[in-house]
């Protein structure tokens, strides 16, 4: 363990604090700039909550969403730049402070947060208007300074130009005059035909260089004066509580500062990370175990039994029960997906500092104002007294959007107990075993085909824990139906005359959460595979059947046709290879994939190529859209091939990347992304690429081998 020597002061904070300040400055996301924005500095134009222009012409755009890799720090400023007429490469980006009024997610009401793949969609008009309002103020300022009619002025490339004289005033020279004006309420916006940035190639990510160089700041990299590092010993089984613990051995580890009980377990703090980890290792905690300690096997039996009973209705077209008995052919199948951990590369972590009447939180916050309220509650403060400093997140995939604000609450509890700033860190083992998983789900199908092989009836029963219950979005549960349990299933786009979807929502002590693409992460797998089974049973090509059933769904059809054409659907493949397809709508975007797979004689699966077509409305930054689709394929393949959290007697059986396998370089297929040109408002991009991966792969494996796999993860194909 690390000990302090004479040349290392008790509090190495000064050096460390400088490290933080210097690095953050270099990163461009200066904490100072966030704090400074509360009041305008003399000579700068604070046009609105999103756009500030300094006297030297520097434009700062405030980003209200979390940058977790999905590219919002790049894409959202482009919306401003388009209307403000500035080069996006010259924009400085600052992350917004938590504020439910100015920085709320417009699709969520008075709450700031990032999720549902809607960062661009909810900002689409807001940020273009913010840029346009600033532009109008600058033009009006130029008209006053030059004493000319404003219709003779145009904005372009960071300046206002007077047409008749050719005189040019840089924005920086206009800000003082513009600051005297009131912002226009409804500034004119460009039509899509006039866009010169939005939808055009060539926009570079703002964070590439600093992330490659290792200078980007994540919560893990924040160091404050006098800060300790905390790790928490949490229950070995969900629902277990601390019966007692012995601090002695932990405190005997040199450098361990404190051992304190908090609501989630027992926290150990130390001078540095290794000391805290050694302290936790030495700590002895006795746990009181709950009666209910489920195993995957018992859950599977229980879920399977429930599928034999009707659930709550989520959709009911026609008369499925009667039609099921009237078809020429009847099919049934059960599909299964496991619990999944998010496993972002940066495990959960945050830094909390409590001072008189104030709490500062540094974190990759996905739910800023919810986290703010939760931190305030624990700290005994009002939400306005809690300052959230949003930093880059090293991935999240939904995990940092936690209704319980679990890791933030832990850090505030520890900081309160120990009286100094705290960096709280989860190890990878904490992450894999700590819950908040994508729920395990079983899908039971019954279907009937008519004499021509066309689907006549479809009955789909889903058994899946509710994610929304008890959380901030519980209002989305209607008539007992958790909408995210049935999304992608209850809105099945296929024209089947008798169609019924039912839901069972069993209660289990395993914490569940949204995981990149949420309900569609399992409903797309089940529905798109079972539809393939119907095609096969009816003697139809999977593309032909989908075409026939999607006649009234032009956007589904367009991505399907494009992916199929680009992938050469129907052209011959060597033995052992197969193509499968899937199409799915999620977060208002449409994605089709054709996956080509090779299965070896011993059953090993090699995904060769994925051809993907996406309709996400206007692709604001097309290369970011491509990157999200590429990444979604890898994320989906990790889950389809390897991902699985299993329970035995209530305890999670996996612990780290050796037994919670993720896709590796050698397993990454070639991914070809085709974006449908569109002038529709932008829709989701971060999540919609995930759902079609598993079904397209499973359908490809069927095409290659004739074997129909119905449980994820696939591992290998049985021979």
């Amino acid at each position, binding site marked *: *363990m*690390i*000990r*302090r*020597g004479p*040349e*290392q002061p008790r509090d190495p904070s000064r*050096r460390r604090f400088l*490290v933080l300040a210097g*690095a953050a400055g270099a990163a461009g996301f200066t904490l100072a700039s966030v704090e400074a924005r509360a009041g305008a500095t003399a000579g700068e134009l604070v046009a609105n909550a999103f756009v500030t222009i300094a006297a030297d012409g520097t434009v700062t755009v405030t980003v209200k969403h979390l940058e977790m*890799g*999905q*590219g919002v720090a790049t894409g959202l400023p482009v919306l401003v730049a388009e209307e403000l007429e500035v080069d996006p490469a010259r924009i400085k980006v600052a992350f917004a402070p938590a504020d439910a009024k100015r920085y709320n997610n417009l699709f969520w009401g008075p709450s700031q947060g990032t999720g549902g793949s809607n960062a661009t969609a909810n900002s689409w008009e807001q940020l273009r208007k913010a840029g346009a309002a600033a532009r109008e103020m600058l033009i009006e300022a130029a008209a006053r300074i030059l004493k000319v009619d404003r219709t003779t002025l145009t904005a372009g490339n960071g300046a206002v130009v007077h047409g008749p004289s050719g005189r040019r005033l840089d924005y920086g020279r206009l800000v003082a005059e513009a600051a005297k004006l009131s912002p226009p309420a409804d500034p004119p916006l460009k039509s899509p035909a006039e866009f010169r940035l939005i939808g055009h190639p060539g926009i*570079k*990510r703002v*964070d590439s*260089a*600093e*992330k*490659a*160089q*290792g*200078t980007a700041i*994540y919560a*893990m*990299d924040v*160091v404050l004066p006098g800060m300790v*590092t905390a790790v928490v010993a949490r229950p070995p089984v969900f629902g277990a509580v601390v019966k007692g613990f012995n601090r002695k051995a932990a405190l005997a580890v040199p450098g361990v500062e404190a051992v304190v009980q908090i609501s989630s377990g027992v926290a150990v703090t130390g001078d*540095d*990370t*290794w000391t805290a980890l050694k302290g936790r290792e030495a700590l002895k905690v006795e746990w009181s175990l709950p009666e209910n300690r489920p195993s995957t096997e018992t859950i599977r039996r229980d879920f399977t039994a429930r599928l034999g009973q009707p659930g709550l209705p989520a959709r009911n077209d026609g008369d499925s029960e009667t039609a099921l008995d009237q078809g020429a052919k009847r099919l049934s199948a059960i599909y299964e997906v496991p619990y999944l951990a998010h496993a*972002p*590369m*940066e*495990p959960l972590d945050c830094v909390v500092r409590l001072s008189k009447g104030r709490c500062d939180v540094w974190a990759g916050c996905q739910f800023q104002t919810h986290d703010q309220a939760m931190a305030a509650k624990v700290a005994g403060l009002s939400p306005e007294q809690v300052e959230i400093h949003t930093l*880059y*997140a*090293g*991935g999240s*995939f939904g995990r940092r959007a936690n209704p319980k604000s679990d890791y933030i609450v832990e850090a505030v509890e520890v900081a309160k107990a120990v009286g100094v700033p705290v960096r709280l860190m989860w190890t*990878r*083992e904490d992450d894999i075993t700590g819950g908040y998983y994508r729920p395990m789900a079983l899908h039971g199908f019954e279907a009937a085909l008519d004499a021509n092989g066309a689907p006549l009836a479809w009955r789909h029963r889903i058994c899946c824990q509710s994610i929304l219950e008890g959380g901030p979005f519980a209002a989305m549960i209607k008539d007992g139906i958790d909408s995210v349990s049935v999304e992608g299933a209850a809105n099945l786009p296929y024209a089947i005359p008798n169609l019924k979807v039912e839901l069972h929502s069993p209660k289990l002590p395993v914490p569940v959460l949204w995981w990149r693409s949420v309900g569609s992460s399992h409903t797309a797998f089940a529905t798109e595979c079972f539809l393939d089974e119907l095609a096969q049973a009816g003697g139809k090509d999977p593309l032909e059947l989908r075409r026939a059933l999607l006649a009234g769904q032009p956007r589904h059809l367009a991505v399907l046709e494009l992916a199929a054409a680009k992938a050469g659907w129907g052209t011959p493949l060597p033995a052992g290879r197969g193509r499968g397809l899937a199409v799915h709508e999620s977060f208002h975007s449409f994605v089709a994939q054709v996956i080509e797979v090779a299965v070896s004689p011993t059953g090993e699966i090699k995904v060769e190529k994925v051809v993907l077509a996406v309709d996400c409305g206007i692709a604001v930054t097309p*290369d970011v859209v491509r*990157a999200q689709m*590429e*990444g*979604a394929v*890898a*994320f989906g393949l*990790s889950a389809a091939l390897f991902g699985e959290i299993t329970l035995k007697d209530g305890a999670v059986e996996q612990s*780290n*990347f*050796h037994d919670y396998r*993720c*896709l*590796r*370089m*050698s397993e*990454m297929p070639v*991914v070809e992304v085709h974006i449908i040109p569109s002038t529709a408002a932008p829709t989701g991009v971060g999540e919609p690429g995930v759902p079609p991966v598993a079904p397209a792969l499973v359908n490809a494996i069927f095409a290659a081998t004739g074997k129909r796999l119905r449980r994820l993860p696939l591992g290998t194909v049985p021979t």
Partner: protein
Amino acid sequence: MISLFVNGERHKVDADPDTPLLWVLRDQLGLFGTKYGCGKGLCGACTVLVDDEPMRACSLPAGEVQGRRVVTIQGLDSAAGKALLAAWTELDVTQCGYCQPGQIITATALLRGNPHPSDADIDTAMDGNLCRCGTYGRIRAAIHLAARRLGGTP
């Protein structure tokens, strides 16, 4: 007291020799570019060069690198390293970015021993570096681009 040679500078660190190099780099030397991802040498986020070889700093006792040359992402100044950093930025490889320093360090070691790696060589060298964002295709392209730019003399 451990004597370390990191990014061209000598440091005396008061740490037990069994402390993983990762925590000495981060907590003692403030070199935050080297990331914690798993603590067990399973993900590669903490990869550093030790005498030009890629090593997992999370499972490498600091005492074992005394007298050896440690290079982290923040001290990467070889021609190959610079070419890779440039290629990474040019192709916008990064998403969340957390694993990328480790990826670039591993790629630097690859190009040192193999100026023109094939796809299979890249698979072998890079397979221990996980990326949950799925940037593998662009990592592969960036390594090829850097190799081309270096013209075979990394």
